[in-house]
């Protein structure tokens, strides 16, 4: 592919958010008919790169060229007009509206502004037909299983007849069969000269579909290889910057009494027959793909979602947890997945955030001691080497990694016996990730029982003692540390064939309230 003009090209672009430089002089090109994978750890800058190509962010320096012409992409609508389509990791569908309408969100075929429903349906059926799915395109989206919703999302990007398609983790909720169907479609698209940028954590996918792979680390471009001329090992090593985390597997010699025990927890339609134990000194992983209900199960253990049946025991005594505050009294700490919406008070100081769950500790006779809180914050900042202008800085201005460290420290402040932590390193840089892992290992060594919920399977493989895998609300197996690899977890989590699921979204949402 020597003389072709790239469809889209980033020319030494940089981008900062506040004082946080997320993209640093990155060059990247996508040729016609090429599938170009973009890989990197969380926080490496992949999403920001995609965002710049889709008009969500403007580069601070450098430029973007489309077919050799310098172009400023103003916003997503402009990007779409320029022939760029994007599938985001987070589902962006309007639940109450039909599948067909969602596929053509805002672009429904219309005459004089009046939607042509027949044409809309036919076109939607054609697009979904390529996935060999016979979905009722008039059904509201929120009645569909998650994996089907993701297909709808992909169909949405294809509906625009784009020349460039950006895919951000498009397979996170797909079954292996659906992944195959997707790959067939992608190959077909490249034959028509369409270029595809493919972001994924799954090395096996990248090596089976991509022509080239570009590695980002800490906002810099490390390399671009032809996939035929490199190996998974080389790419992974470049991604994490030479560290080989396999050597820091958790040593499980300090395992003690059972701290938490779930017996056949069920909530019909959400999860069924969940039995598990957590022991002192142990780090246990709870793994599952999107739609596996891993987060709801974690919430059920933390009192944020009440199971209809089953027994939950803490240190051998049955408990009836109906709220997080009840769970905290029983010795549980819960670090939520969504840092910005569920975990932090973004417009409050680092200190306010740190002590939010442990106000009592800093209160004597009803009087809150700022001095005591200040001391605790100072300790946390030092222990986690948090980078913040001061502890009075609004936490909004910290980088994702530093925010995540404070969120973890906030829960460690409550001195829990059992820590349930959902996606502990989502969207943080490599340094913060190692530090968070290190802290969790230390706490386990001190006797804490830790449950790590994650869709980041390599993380679970290196961090935990054993991994419990869930699929569609049921336990499907357990993998010991010695056997755990990215692929062994994925195979178990994906299963062979997915059964239908009902309105999971509703349930997960109501679980938060």
């Amino acid at each position: 592919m020597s003389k072709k003009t790239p469809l889209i090209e980033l020319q030494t672009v940089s981008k900062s958010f506040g004082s946080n430089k997320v993209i640093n002089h990155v060059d990247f090109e996508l040729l016609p008919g090429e599938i170009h994978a973009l890989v990197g750890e969380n926080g490496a800058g992949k999403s920001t790169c995609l965002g710049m190509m889709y008009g969500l962010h403007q580069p601070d320096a450098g430029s973007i060229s489309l077919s050799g012409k310098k172009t400023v992409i103003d916003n997503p609508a402009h990007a779409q007009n320029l022939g760029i389509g994007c599938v985001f990791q987070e589902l962006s569908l309007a639940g109450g509206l039909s599948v067909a309408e969602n596929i053509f969100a805002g672009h429904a075929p219309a005459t004089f502004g009046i939607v042509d429903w027949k044409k809309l349906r036919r076109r939607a059926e054609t697009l979904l037909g390529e996935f060999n799915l016979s979905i009722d395109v008039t059904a509201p989206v929120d009645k569909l299983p998650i994996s089907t919703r993701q297909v709808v999302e992909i169909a949405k990007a294809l509906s625009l007849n784009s020349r460039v398609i950006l895919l951000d983790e498009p397979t996170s909720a797909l079954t292996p069969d659906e992944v195959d169907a997707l790959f067939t479609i992608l190959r077909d698209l490249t034959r028509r000269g369409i270029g595809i940028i493919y972001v994924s954590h799954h090395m096996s996918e990248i090596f089976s579909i991509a022509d080239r792979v570009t590695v980002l680390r800490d906002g810099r471009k490390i390399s671009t290889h032809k996939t035929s001329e490199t190996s998974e090992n080389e790419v992974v090593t470049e991604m994490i910057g030479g560290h080989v985390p396999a050597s820091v597997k958790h040593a499980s010699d300090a395992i003690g009494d059972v701290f938490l025990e779930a017996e056949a927890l069920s909530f019909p339609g959400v999860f069924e027959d969940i039995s598990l134990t957590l022991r002192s000194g142990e780090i246990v992983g709870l793994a599952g793909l999107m739609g596996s209900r891993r987060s709801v199960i974690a919430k059920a253990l933390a009192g944020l979602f009440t199971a209809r049946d089953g027994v939950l025991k803490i240190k051998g005594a049955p408990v009836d947890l109906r709220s997080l505050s009840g769970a905290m009294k029983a010795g549980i700490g819960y670090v939520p997945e969504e840092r910005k919406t569920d975990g932090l008070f973004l417009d409050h100081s680092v200190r306010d955030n740190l002590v939010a769950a442990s106000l009592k500790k800093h209160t004597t006779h009803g009087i809150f001691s700022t001095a005591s809180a200040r001391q605790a914050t100072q300790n946390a900042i030092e222990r986690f080497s948090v980078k913040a202008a001061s502890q009075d800085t609004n936490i909004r201005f910290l980088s994702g990694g530093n925010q995540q460290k404070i969120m973890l420290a906030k829960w460690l402040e409550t001195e829990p016996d059992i820590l349930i932590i959902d996606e502990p390193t989502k969207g943080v840089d490599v340094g913060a990730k190692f530090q968070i892992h290190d802290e969790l290992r230390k706490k386990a060594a001190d006797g804490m029982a830790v449950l790590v919920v994650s869709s980041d399977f390599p993380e679970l493989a290196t961090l935990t003692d054993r991994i419990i895998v869930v699929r569609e609300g049921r336990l499907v197996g357990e993998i010991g540390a010695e056997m755990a690899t990215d692929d062994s977890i994925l195979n178990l989590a994906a299963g062979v064939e997915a059964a239908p699921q009902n309105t999971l979204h509703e349930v997960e949402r109501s679980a938060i309230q």
Partner: protein
Amino acid sequence: MSLQTLDKQDAPSLMSKVISACLHTREITLLLMILGIVVVMSFVTPYFLSASNFRAVAVGMTPTAIIVIGMAILLASGGFDLSVGSVMALSSTVVALLLLAGVPIPVAVVLGLVLGAVAGLANGILITVIGINPLVATLGTMSIARGIALVLTEGFSVSSLPPAFGYIGKASLFGIPLLVILTLSLIVLFDLAVRHTRFFRQIYFIGANEKAAMLSGIAVNRVRIIAYILTGTLAALAGVLLASRLMSGTPTAGNALELQVLAAAVIGGASLRGGEGTILGAFLGVVFVALINNAMTMLAVSIYWQMIVIGAVLVCAVALDMLVRRQSA
């Protein structure tokens, strides 16, 4: 794939389908309840079914019914507008003052509507471009619009308008007041527009998930601003028609109307969460509330008790909706 198997598994009987449709389609629930009120009331008092009573109820609810169109659209897009009652009063007084100053009727009417559009534009810009919360922004414009109406008139109604201006407000066609015909036409027009035009379909995407709508290439701010302009204009239209019917501009008209409109829209299936509701539903909400009020007046229930009942109806409607949703989730 999965959906077909699902359908077969619990193929519901016709009866349970009908019941489920009634519970899940707010329009049908409301229609049945409205029929219920009519039937019960016609037994209780013979005056209820009289043409004069129906005419009075229908004419009385025209301002609310016109304004609820805009409110339902805003609610579906995840916004709302508290300034509608004040804008209605302001436009009614401004049109009246213009007429007194000798401005020709069509010009005065158009200026009144433009005033409403400008108020809506102001709301839209405050909320989208500047980013003020809709509650605060429209609370502010509500107070400003009402204040201007009171300043312009020193609190008095503006009467002695040219008799020709009263035509629309008083005329009838085949015994049906023109006001009612006009209102129903607007309802039908906008209900169809919201169901079938590409522009209005966008509001559901915005209301369901604003960020996702933006990522889908929808010009979120533009659509929102247009929705506020539309609402302001409809409020002004309600004001002009009110002035025509009463033959005066009233600066105190439409006090607390915004809350009645919101309540009716929510009873009709709209939600402050956004992403749902129809014009037809919101209109039926207005009819339902108007009939309850009328029925209670006929039964000589005190106006204070009426307030309690309407409040209870609102809360019950929303609570019932939440329970039905939880059941089906």
